């Protein structure tokens, strides 16, 4: 591939500390140092533009059975309106896997992590990934409501066996790490519990949520998975659940922990509605706990759908569905609940949610500790990220929005008092360097020599959201895939996964478990290469140990 130089852009690359005018060279899909004695085969003038690494979305529900159920549940939410360009089949088929790849690429995103892959449905997630063009994908495997794990914990098995099980499951489902969703609470819902807190006990297992997530947190570290346990806590969405969040952080044992879509846990009980923002309190706790990272799950006012493997929570949300319908799936372990919803700026509760999310962004000091998700599509679609970046970068823009909220909201959020504005460098820390660190990606989220040549070039202007929505150029593995905000052709991205080590004894034990319980070969749940349409679908990311 040709030696290419992007000449004279404003490079914003926190991983290498660059925030200045300079050139970026790449060849054969990788960033290179400026080669001595060679001139570029291709030179692109990007003066007047911002140059960043391709962005990484650490938590976005883009693939798998639950997402597909949502598509089928809500045909009215995604009517297509325009024909696609040549060379990009299905790229305008709204909410299709193909459109997902196109839209992410156009915003300069080149890696996206689907955070909830059920072990028994992993193959479908990977089949869908295969049909997301351009970008690289990865998934987190969901454990914590599965009988095999809970049974081992109940029976007081040694850490070694639990570590082996975790590592084997991550390897076999071909993911980047572990997610735990309302630990024990989904199993408890099957036994008809309708609420489940940190110290409630799972029927027939005698375990608390606290014990389950702590065990998985330890196992994640022990087997060398770079990404900390990715935890969806108990009591999502409930007034006063800040107590759950603070207690969960206190229970983190000094080990790394990632808390997902924390905006949905930043609620107090103040005011006449008994619902207030506790974003400031939450942010203070995160600032004091450097091993805790969070993504926000920002609410953006829009019609959307909530997709979650927290089946207990989703069942409880059904009466508030907009429109009034939903799907509840009791899976082999977690399952899923799909409940449509509309966030309205005129709704007191939604406005508090919006404000709480922004408080979290603006009051957490370190941009590499807080990530910009909307928990797509739960707080709003990923296509609202450009508007979200604009809100973070402008106190004036936030003030305009605040003036449209119900007046009593302002009494229950600290947002009006916050003047902080994110810089482009901080945006890049959150969406590039920090995100890469969070997953142990050493060759992405950065523009240093040796990194993958995933590069986004933006034209700055008064319309910050517009700048992020339509990148001027995007290169994926050194290939030009977006020009002036349009995808002109597809390339095929990889699915990233890790292979932690474990003792093969666990495999035999699992074989007999499946045989005894289901009378089925365990391999029926596998993700073999032969099941995917293309060879080389995967790329391995090294483990921490």
């Amino acid at each position, binding site marked *: 591939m040709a030696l290419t130089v992007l000449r004279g852009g404003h490079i914003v690359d926190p991983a290498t500390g660059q925030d200045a005018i300079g050139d970026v060279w790449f060849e054969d899909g990788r960033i290179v140092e400026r080669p001595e004695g060679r001139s570029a085969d291709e030179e692109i003038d990007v003066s007047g533009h911002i140059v960043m690494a391709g962005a990484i979305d650490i938590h976005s529900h883009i*693939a798998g059975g639950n*997402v*597909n159920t949502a*598509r*089928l*549940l809500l*045909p009215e939410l*995604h*009517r*297509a*309106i*325009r*024909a*696609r360009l040549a*060379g990009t*089949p*299905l790229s*305008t*088929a*709204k*909410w*299709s*896997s*193909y459109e997902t790849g196109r839209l992410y690429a156009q915003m300069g995103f080149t890696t996206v992590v689907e955070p909830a892959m059920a072990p*028994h*449905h992993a*193959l*479908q997630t990977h*089949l*869908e990934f295969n*049909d997301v*063009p351009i970008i690289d994908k990865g998934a987190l495997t969901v454990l914590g409501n599965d*009988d095999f794990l809970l049974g081992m914990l109940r029976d007081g098995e040694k850490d070694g066996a639990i570590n082996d099980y975790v590592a084997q499951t991550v390897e076999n489902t071909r993911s980047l790490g572990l997610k735990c969703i309302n630990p024990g609470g989904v199993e408890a*819902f*099957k*036994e*008809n519990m309708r609420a489940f807190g940190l110290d409630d006990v799972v*029927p*027939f297992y005698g375990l608390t949520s606290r014990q389950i997530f702590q065990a998985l947190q330890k196992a994640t570290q022990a087997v060398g998975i770079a990404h900390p346990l990715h935890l969806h806590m108990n009591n999502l969405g409930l007034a006063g659940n800040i107590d759950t969040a603070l207690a969960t952080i206190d229970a983190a044992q000094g080990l790394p922990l990632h808390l997902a879509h924390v905006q949905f846990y930043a609620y107090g009980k103040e005011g006449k509605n008994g619902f207030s923002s506790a974003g400031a309190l939450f942010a203070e706790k995160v600032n004091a706990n450097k091993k805790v990272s969070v993504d926000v799950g920002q609410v953006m006012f829009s019609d959307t759908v909530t997709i979650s493997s927290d089946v207990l929570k989703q069942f409880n949300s*059904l009466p508030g569905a907009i429109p009034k*319908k*939903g*799907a*509840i*799936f*009791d*899976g*082999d372990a977690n*399952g899923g609940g799909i409940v449509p919803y509309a966030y309205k700026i005129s709704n007191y509760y939604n406005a508090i949610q919006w404000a709480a999310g922004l408080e979290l962004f603006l009051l957490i000091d370190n941009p590499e500790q807080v990530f910009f998700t909307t928990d797509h599509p739960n707080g709003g679609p990923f296509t609202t990220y450009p508007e979200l970046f604009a809100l973070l970068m402008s106190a004036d823009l936030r003030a305009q929005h605040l003036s449209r909220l119900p007046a009593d909201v302002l009494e229950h959020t600290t947002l009006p008092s916050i003047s902080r504005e994110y810089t482009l460098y901080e945006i890049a820390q959150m969406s590039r360097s920090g995100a890469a660190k969070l997953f142990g990606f050493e060759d992405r989220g950065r523009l240093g020599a040796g990194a993958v040549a995933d590069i986004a070039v933006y034209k700055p202007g008064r319309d910050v959201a517009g700048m992020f929505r339509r990148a001027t150029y995007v290169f994926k593995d050194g290939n030009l895939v977006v020009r002036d905000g349009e995808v002109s052709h*597809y390339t095929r991205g990889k699915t990233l996964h890790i292979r932690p080590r474990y003792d093969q004894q666990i495999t035999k034990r699992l074989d007999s478990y499946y045989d005894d*319980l*289901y*009378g*089925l070969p365990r391999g*029926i*749940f596998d993700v*073999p290469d*032969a*099941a995917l*349409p293309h060879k080389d679908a995967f790329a391995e990311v090294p483990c921490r140990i």
Partner: protein
Amino acid sequence: METATLDGKAIALDDAYRHAAKILSGAAFPLVAGLGADVAGARAAILLAEQLRGAFDHLASRETLADIDVKRSFGMFTTTANEARVRGDCVVLIGPGLTQAWPGMLERLAPSQPPRRGAQAQQPRKVIWLGPEGDEASAIPGAKVIPASAHQLSGVLAAWRARFGGRPVALDADKVSLIDGLVETLKNARFGVFVWSASTLDPLAIEMLQGLVIELNATTRFTGVHIGGRSGASGVTQTSGWMTGFPPRTGFGRGYPEHDPWRFEASRLVDSGEADAALWISAFDGEKPAWSRDDIPLITLAPANAAPSRGLFIGVGQPGVTHDAVLMSQETGGMTLRKASAPTDAPSVAQAISAIMAEVSEGAWR
């Protein structure tokens, strides 16, 4: 095993692919129908329909859309067959022919064995079968059989739901007390499961069933297992879902997908003359199209023993039999790779369509 015929006469396979491409490219609104294929075949067929700006439908869409219509207009509770097996303490089978729609059903649900988990673990499972066919229910010792003909199912379900809600029904006192007893059983279940197949229930009956599920969940846990349609319907529907956002009966005439269960119904498109060429895919068993016209250009992809005497025929292998295939598995509720049980070198649907695609203008994103 490579076979191709044109109006019953053998032709070379390469000529057949070229001819198929010519027919489809020359059509104003081609139809890809049948779609009896594995995931790879469905994927190729949908990409072909998209490129041709045609439409696609599956031969079991009536059943698939009965379930989906309830889901998207009302909502749905479901579980996996394995969860029903290990936890279901009360299994209620609805309608006739379930063991034909899903031959492995009794082995998978293991209704004669006690559940393994939950409040009723190791207690005898309650099994009720409403309206089985013939002695279908005799395979489950102890099952309570409630006789009903297929057309009575909706009415019976309505009566159950009415009595559950304490509302009067216009039935004899004997029947009312029978129903009240059954409703008590449902209420006392700890993890109850309805099992149904849309091949014998219409959407209103399925909605009635799901309405009852929602009401039961006010106090206990209840859910359902639905049996998918024939010829790979569930896997094709999932594939169609992520590729286009919609289930089959979707058209691309405007260059983007539009889903309309009436407009893009295969037989209607052919019989009305709106479609002017058809690619019929039925790789599992060679099922024939249900339309009545026989004067539009037709390409058939089916097993060698199902060659029609009219039109262009390309013999393909059977998914999971002659070649490895990804299919939706009824026993797990997920996609799985089925290894070939009797491998041959017959092309798969995906390979045949890929060869046709290679002859179609824009060329291949595969």
